[in-house]
Structures are given as structure tokens and as C-alpha cells.
């Protein structure tokens, strides 16, 4: 053996190469069958081999001038980094923890933005109500025609009533179609839009919330003038508790983002946005489920149950359930 064939970097490579090859095999099977498809032995080896390759990389940077080896180790380390530090839990586990711990906690953390967004919504309702009461001709400006379902200040009391207790023999299919097309997907999209618009300093969120409130208020005013207030709220609120709650939450998420953009605090704007964006995104993901529930109530319960006391019972029940859920759930779980 001559001196030069015992170059340190050559020896180093000869010694470490088997562990690199083994890691590469594991990464290959992760690519094919996913992390869940690995056997227990491979799974246990992965972090060990990951650390080994990182140490190899550090050593190689110090002693080797073989560019191919350096680039190879960089890429191998990067690929195993993706596996070890990529998302690591299954969607199911993720969802369970999300529902019982992280969502309610994120909502509690955002209570002030939530108060602001609920206030905007209520302000919109009050404004819409008063404006329409004052001058019924404003109704058309406040309520878009597809939401009005042929209801306007000119509609007869009987027809207005009929919408609240529609007796049409609706087939399950029609109900489901209505549910899917409008009640759920439409509302959930508005909610997500609310979040995304928060990026623009939160101002579009403010407008969207108030506008949604205006519509509801104007509709309520029309019913109020006919003495149908009790029936109207009994028609809106069974799903409204959940739906308006979800809208308010999306608005809150939008405000959280807006706050990060305008007042980043001690951190840089980018870091703050990333930090808060994740929390706010969590809230919006939760509201998708809330919109789903609201649409179920609206699409089925409301069509099937016409008794006013039962409707109000549902209002109270959903209100209490959400209150308990958001104030109590996930308090004890460790962070």
C-alpha cells in the first residue's frame, strides 16, 4: 500500500459508504410505499442513519475535496431530512388531535379578534335591520336577488310565511343537491376567502363581515314589519348559530393575519406572518367542519321540522354545545 492510496477521504468513504447505501434503500422504499409501509426495523434505523449521514456530511466538508461525494452527501442528507422532518403523522391522528385540542385552543387564543369580527357581523345585522325598517326600498340594495328567494317588502305576508315553513314534498335528492351546491360549498368558500383576504391588512374582511350582516338584517326587517320575527329567527338560527359562528371565526382568522401584516410586533413581518398564519389557518380548517354541520341542519332539519319550540330548542342546544366545546376542550392536554 502506498501512502497516497490511503488518503483519508478514501478511507472515510470506504468506511461510511455502507450506511449511506442502506439509508438510500430506506428512502427509496419510503418513496414507493410511504412512511407507513416501512417495517419496524427500517423505521427504527431511519433516524439513526439520518444522523449518521449528517455526521458524514460534516466530516466530508472538513476533510474531503471529492466534489461528487460532497454533493452526494448533501443530496442524501436533504432527502432524509425531508423524510425525518416532513409531516410525520397520519391524517387521521392529525385530525383527531386537531378536533379535540388544537382547534378549540386556537379559537381561545384568538378571542379578541373573534370579538371584533362578531361585533362587525352584529353591526351589519343592526345596520341592515334599521336601514330597511326606515326605508323598505333599501332592501333591494342590501339583499342580492339569489339570496332573497323572491322575498321583498312587496311580497305578501302569506308568501313570506310560506318560505319559512315550506311544505313542498322535497325529495331527499333535491335537499342533498341544495345542501351540497349552496349551503355548504358556497359558505365554506366564503369563509376561506375571509381568511385569505386577511392578508390585505384585514380591511376586506371587515367589509365582507358587515356586508353579510347587512343582508341578514334587511331580511329580518321585512319579517319584522309583518310580525313574523319569532318565526323568522326560528328559521334562521338553528343553523345560524353554527354558521354565523363559523363566519365570525373566519373573520377572526382574517384579522389575525391582518394584524400580523400591519403590527408585526417584535419579530420581523415575515416571521410573524408565518407564526400567526399557521394558527389562523387552523381556525379556518375547523370552520370547514362547522359549515358542514350548519349545512346539514339547514338542508335537512329545517325542511323536516316546522315546530317553532323544537327549532328554538335546537338553537339553544347548538349554542351551549359550541360554547362548552370552545371553552373547555383541550385545556388539559399538554402542548
Amino acid at each position, binding site marked *: 500500500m502506498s501512502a*497516497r492510496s490511503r*488518503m483519508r477521504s478514501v478511507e472515510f468513504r470506504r468506511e461510511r459508504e455502507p450506511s449511506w447505501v442502506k439509508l438510500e434503500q430506506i428512502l427509496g422504499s419510503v418513496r414507493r410505499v410511504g412512511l407507513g409501509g416501512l417495517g419496524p426495523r427500517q423505521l427504527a434505523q431511519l433516524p439513526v442513519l439520518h444522523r449518521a449521514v449528517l455526521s458524514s456530511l460534516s466530516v466530508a466538508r472538513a*476533510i474531503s475535496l471529492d466534489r*461528487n461525494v460532497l*454533493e452526494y452527501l448533501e443530496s442524501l442528507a436533504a432527502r432524509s431530512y425531508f423524510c425525518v422532518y416532513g409531516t410525520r403523522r397520519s391524517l387521521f391522528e392529525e385530525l383527531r388531535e*386537531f378536533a379535540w385540542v388544537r382547534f378549540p385552543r386556537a379559537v381561545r387564543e384568538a378571542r379578541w379578534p373573534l370579538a371584533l369580527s362578531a361585533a362587525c357581523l352584529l353591526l351589519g345585522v343592526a345596520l341592515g335591520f334599521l336601514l330597511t325598517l326606515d326605508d323598505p326600498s333599501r332592501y333591494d340594495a342590501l339583499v342580492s336577488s339569489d339570496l332573497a328567494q323572491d322575498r321583498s317588502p312587496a311580497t305578501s305576508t302569506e308568501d313570506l310565511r310560506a318560505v319559512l315553513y315550506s311544505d313542498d314534498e322535497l325529495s331527499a335528492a333535491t335537499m342533498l*343537491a341544495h345542501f351540497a351546491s349552496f349551503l355548504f360549498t358556497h359558505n365554506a368558500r366564503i369563509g376561506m376567502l375571509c381568511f385569505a383576504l386577511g392578508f390585505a391588512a384585514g380591511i376586506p374582511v371587515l367589509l365582507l363581515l358587515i356586508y353579510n350582516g347587512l343582508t341578514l338584517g334587511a331580511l329580518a326587517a321585512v319579517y319584522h314589519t309583518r310580525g313574523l320575527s319569532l318565526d323568522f329567527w326560528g328559521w334562521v338560527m338553528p343553523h345560524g348559530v353554527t354558521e354565523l359562528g363559523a363566519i365570525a371565526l373566519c373573520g377572526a382568522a382574517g384579522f389575525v393575519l391582518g394584524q400580523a401584516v400591519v403590527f408585526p410586533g417584535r419579530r420581523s413581518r415575515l416571521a410573524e406572518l408565518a407564526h400567526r398564519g399557521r394558527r389562523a389557518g*387552523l381556525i379556518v380548517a375547523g370552520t370547514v367542519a362547522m359549515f358542514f354541520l350548519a349545512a346539514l341542519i339547514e338542508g335537512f332539519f329545517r325542511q323536516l321540522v316546522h315546530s317553532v319550540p323544537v327549532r328554538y330548542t335546537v338553537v339553544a342546544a347548538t349554542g351551549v354545545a359550541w360554547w362548552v366545546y370552545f371553552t373547555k376542550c383541550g385545556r388539559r392536554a399538554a402542548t
Partner: protein
Amino acid sequence: MIASAEHPGRRREIVTPEGVPLAFTLASPAERAMAFLLDAALIIAVTILLALLLYGATDQDGGGLSSAFALLVMFFLRNFYFTWFEISWQGSTPGKRVIGLRVIDRRGGVLSADAVFARNLTREIEFFMPLLLLMFPEIFDPDAPVRHLFTILWMLALAALPLLNRDHLRVGDLVGGTLVVHAPKTKLLRDLGTAADPKRDEPPEFGFTPAQLDMYGVRELQVLEDLLRTRRHEARTMRDVAERIQHKIAWSGGKLKPRDFLDAFYRAQRARLEHELLLGKARERKREGRLGQPDTPRRDDRQPDDQQPGSQQPDDQGT
């Protein structure tokens, strides 16, 4: 020590939780757009397939049930396709996998599901709404041209954000704290420090003197490595390079096959430089002039970066 030749401006370093810095190459906006288009094509294809399948089963109920089902599926595909894949495929989607891209945490930590959720919620305003606006401008307020113009500008600004910042972040990346990078894949090649022929245990040596080896630096060594690893060897290039090196180090060992000479010179040079690296004095560049002559700065000296290994031009410019 690595002088990465490709996209030096697009390298971003993160520090892993183990404390080792890893460098990644940012994905370019064009690559990301390609990956996105592939994903979008997949979503559309699935939707159409579903619609066609359901079309056959619509007659009994007037299409209500199946269209409702299709709408729900479309909603979930459109909003959760990316989230689902990025969570279960460690930060990649089918489109990203084909192009070779990955989502990582911008600060090097674990890519959390929260980040994935957040970065995909904004696609609605970044892509779907601008697209809708371009295709059907009339649904966005036909009566108010000023507001309309404002909406268009605002949406275009959002959609163009990746082109406007250094890290090519889109709104979702800002909000989720993520970065999209290349998933690198480099093959481990034969160690040039060992003999090319495994049966010959010992590579031939020609006894270079330290003074001869000190004429060159790390950059030239790696250029030489590239040349030796090139598949298609240009015999003339090999000969040119070998002659230039022999000239520069005042070689007196007689005539050799260029390939043998370069292999041996590479090994000796690497051993010498690695030894010096351990002592903390690695030399980056070659020395000017010829061995035995004083250093004379040359005005027309090309930068080593311009040199393309394996091309028709000789790599080394010894005098």
C-alpha cells in the same frame, strides 16, 4: 468547500435540528407553475371522469343526488387535494414529485400540518379567483368599472407575488412559513482517489513533488474532477489539459498517456490539498506563472468559473 456551479443565487441554507447546515436550491417560479399545472390537470381529469361516470347513473332521481355528490367531491378535491398530499407525502404532491420539488419549513424545523393547511388555504385568492376573473369578468360587478379595475390589479399583484420577491414566496408560503425547494438527487460515483481498475490494487504514481502540487488549488482540482468524470472523453481535450499541466509544473517524467497522467495528478493533488485542508490552509486558486518562475499577474487571465469542463476548450490555462 463546494463551489456549486448551478444557480448560486438560488441557494438557501437552513440549519437542521441537529445543527448541520444544509443548502437547498430554490424552485423557480416556472418549475412551480409546471408542478401546479400538472396537479390542476389531475384534479380536472378526476372531476371529468367522475362526472362522466355519474352521468350514466342520473336518470332515476333527475340528477339531484349525483350532481350533489359530484359537487361535494369537487369541493374537496379543489380545496384539500394539496393539503392531503403534502401531509401524507412529506411535502410533495404528484405534480411536485414529477418536477422534483418539495415543501420545507423555512426555518428548518418539522413541516407541520398547520403550515400545510395555511399555505393551501390561500390558493383560492391566488389562483382560482384570478382565473375566474380572467375567464368571466362579468360576474365581478359589471356596473362598476373602477372597482372592477381595482379588483383585477389586486388579484394580479397577488398572483404575481412569487415573481416579486427573492425567495419566490407566494402568499401561502408567507402565511405558512414554508419554502419550496428542489429535491436533489446526486448519484454516488466511483471514487477517483482509488484505482480505476479494481484488480490493480495500487494506482500508478509518478512522484510529484510538493512544489509541483502547490501550483494548483481546490477550484482547479474540482474542474479536473469534472473532466475525469465526463462520460464522453474528448481525446484532444485530455491531451491539451495534460500538456498544459505538464508545462505549468515543469514536468520532466517523460511521455505518458494523458488519461493516466491526469488520474495520477488528480490523486496526488487531492491528497496534497486534503492534507493542507486538515492543517487549515487550503488553497482556493492556482498560482500564476510556471514552476520556477516568479508570479506575474496576467491581465487577460480568465476566471476559472468560465471554464467549461469537458468542452472543446482546454480547461486549464497554464502559461
